[in-house]
């Protein structure tokens, strides 16, 4: 994985999902999803509860049950790869349920994910970004408050050098100040050339950050809204999301 730098040309395709189907056991959740994300872009996946946004992220990492279709990451087909190999293509995942390891300390949690590419953030940078974590570095993961866990979940993938970040509801349960910090962070990351896919419920948070919004309903993309068309499509979004 070459580290994408900030002036890499936009339009280089980072991720292409075509005809993605995914299942949990018997239940068919994704019904042929298609979307594309270019290097350095921030896109959001919007939708109502249960639309299948989280499932989309999980399917990209092979964490759902059966799946079919095609997921090209940097030109490589990953649909048949085992999860741990997909991660090594440079993908960082921050799950909806945060996934903090209770038996590890905050710092161990932070250091846990292995480096998948060069150019990750240093611990110092991370602690400057999230001072709370520095303060609680020695406490066991399960003792952190909900919000602290959320910060830790994001922080630890920034260390790994992954350049494609899958962020699931990161603004969830955070104090407004922190949400603002996160907003700044996403911008910063984008400037550094990261590619980000965000699943968001908080439209106000996501709207100004994203280059493009995909709206998912019943496991399909039902609407694509580029940044510049946002104003015009507000009504449609309203209808789809109840915003």
């Amino acid at each position, binding site marked *: 994985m070459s580290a994408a730098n900030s002036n890499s040309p936009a339009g280089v395709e980072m991720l292409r999902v075509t005809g993605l189907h995914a299942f949990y056991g018997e239940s068919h959740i994704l019904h042929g999803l298609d979307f594309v994300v270019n290097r350095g872009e921030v896109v959001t996946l919007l939708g109502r509860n249960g639309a299948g946004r989280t499932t989309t992220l999980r399917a990209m990492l092979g964490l759902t049950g059966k799946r079919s279709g095609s997921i090209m990451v940097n030109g490589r087909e990953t649909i048949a790869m085992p999860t741990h190999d997909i991660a090594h293509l440079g993908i960082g995942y921050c799950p909806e349920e945060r996934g903090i390891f209770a038996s590890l300390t905050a710092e161990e949690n932070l250091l846990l994910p292995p480096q998948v590419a060069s150019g990750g953030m240093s611990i110092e940078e991370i602690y400057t970004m999230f001072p709370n974590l520095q303060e609680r570095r020695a406490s066991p993961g399960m003792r952190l408050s909900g919000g602290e866990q959320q910060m830790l979940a994001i922080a630890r993938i920034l260390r790994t050098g992954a350049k494609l970040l899958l962020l699931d509801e990161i603004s*969830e349960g955070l104090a407004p100040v922190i949400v603002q910090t996160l907003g700044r962070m996403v911008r910063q990351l984008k400037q550094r050339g990261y590619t980000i896919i965000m699943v968001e419920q908080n439209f106000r948070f996501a709207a100004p950050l994203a280059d493009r919004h995909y709206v998912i309903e019943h496991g399909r993309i039902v609407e694509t809204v580029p940044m510049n068309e946002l104003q015009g499509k507000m009504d449609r979004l309203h209808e789809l999301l109840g915003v």
Partner: protein
Amino acid sequence: MPLQSEFILETCELTKAFKGFVAVSSVNLKVKRGSIHALIGPNGAGKTTTFNLLTKFLAPTSGTITFNGADITSEKPAEIARRGIVRSFQISATFPHLTVLENVRIGLQRELGTSFHFWKSEKSLEQLNGRAMELLESVDLASFAKTVTVELPYGRKRALEIATTLALDPELMLLDEPTQGMGHEDVGRVVDLIRKVSANRTILMVEHNLGVVADLSDTITVLARGAVLAEGPYSEVSKNPLVLEAYVGSEQQ
């Protein structure tokens, strides 16, 4: 009824220390009877911990908790519940493989006093169905009564949880982030619901969604670093510079 004080719940110098770390320190909380009281604060301020102390999932290091004039500091979780303090969880808590109706009935059933009666027929619980349906009605779930709970969408589960809580007819309801993870419609529904059920009872809630807080609450207590930072109605608190700095932030992005 004995003379009731204005405050249904009071804590006095409530403190919880974890190995060398004080999560809640000397909190004096007074919750007015019949009000909706919100507890807000930055992450890690000690809100959930306070809840855990109030419902005895944690034992306080020091301080006392008084409910309706009685000292409940050393009671067990189930006893607290029977006194009329019932909480909901940060993550929705239902009985997934029971039907929606049965979920609510579990809440009602204890009142019958037959919960240990292993020789009685289940049919004896059917007398509760009427009341259970009323409760479901009140949260718009009546049409789902026969549905197995796992199949409900998230927001509906939240509503069901509230209905089950209501079944106990609690005097004081503790809601931990009731709108967390909800889509906008669901948020609206839950806000309405909370307002509806707040009649005749007291509600203490933790919530990060300032819109909801502003909308619902009579009084707001802001916690930061385990201590009370500010208290008062939304209009006051939201202008408090300390609160702005610690919690609300600049609001322009």
